[in-house]
């Protein structure tokens, strides 16, 4: 079982993406999707050595939280762009100490920060222990760092545990 389907999550994702791409529920489409879902993980196994375990349900809750935060942050950034003059803007580099240690978890964390408007992740430190993030408007940088860590990193630590 493990050798035939080495990565069940990736297989399921491929079948779902294939079915969405075909946009049609038929036996032929499902069959081809299953073939792709079986073959692609076998041939790409070399690209994900030592992949982390991901908890499914906290992961789904995390996606919903991020989508909600994206909507809220969109309105905040829209207000900043429309009504805040440049001289009152306080853009700042945030140096966020990382407690996550796997590259996958750090990538998801950095991607979340980039997707939420108002913050863009720029780089990670060479030892992988600090994340460099640019914030559009952060009057209190340490509070912003604490917010991001508590809201996203704490959850990711549980998902990638």
């Amino acid at each position, binding site marked *: 079982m493990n050798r035939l389907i080495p990565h069940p999550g990736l297989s399921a994702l491929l079948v779902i993406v294939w079915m969405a791409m075909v946009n049609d529920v038929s036996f032929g489409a499902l069959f081809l999707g299953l073939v792709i879902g079986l073959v692609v993980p076998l041939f790409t196994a070399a690209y994900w050595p030592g992949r982390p375990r991901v908890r499914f349900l906290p992961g789904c809750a995390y996606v919903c939280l991020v989508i909600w935060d994206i909507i809220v942050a969109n309105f905040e950034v*829209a207000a900043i762009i429309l009504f805040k003059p440049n001289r009152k803007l306080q853009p700042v580099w945030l140096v966020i100490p990382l407690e996550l240690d796997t590259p996958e978890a750090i990538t998801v964390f950095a991607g979340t920060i980039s997707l939420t408007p108002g913050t*863009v992740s720029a780089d990670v*430190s060479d030892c992988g222990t600090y994340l460099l993030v640019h914030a559009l408007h952060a009057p209190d940088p340490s509070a912003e760092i604490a917010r991001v860590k508590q809201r996203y990193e704490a959850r990711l630590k549980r998902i990638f545990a």
Partner: protein
Amino acid sequence: MIGGFPLAELLTAALIVVGASFALIGSWGLVRLPSLMERLHGPTKASTLGLGGMLIGSVVFFQLVKGEWTTHELLVSLFLFVTAPIAANMIAKVHLHRLRLGEKPGPADPPTAPRDGSDWATYEAPREGTPGWFPDE
């Protein structure tokens, strides 16, 4: 039309107008914000809620007006959400290198060094024991 009231059309129009407004505000941010790193924030906005609104409008239109399910919009947003941070990250890294080279791309200050004794990864080749390092390279 539901009972003579064009609810589907209204909903579609509202979603498209909201999405387009966010794309417009994002573009305006690109024009008016002071330097490159601030300007990066405009387009990330346009590509999330701006495009999201328009895509949901498209789903609603095809479902309620044409009566067929489409899933392509979900795929568009999925791929967009996966790729958009990479593009922003690349632009930010080029900006970091230009700052280090002493060019003055804008009023943004260079970032402080991380406190773990190393430098930001884009300035250095991967070292042994770091996540970017692979023994068989």
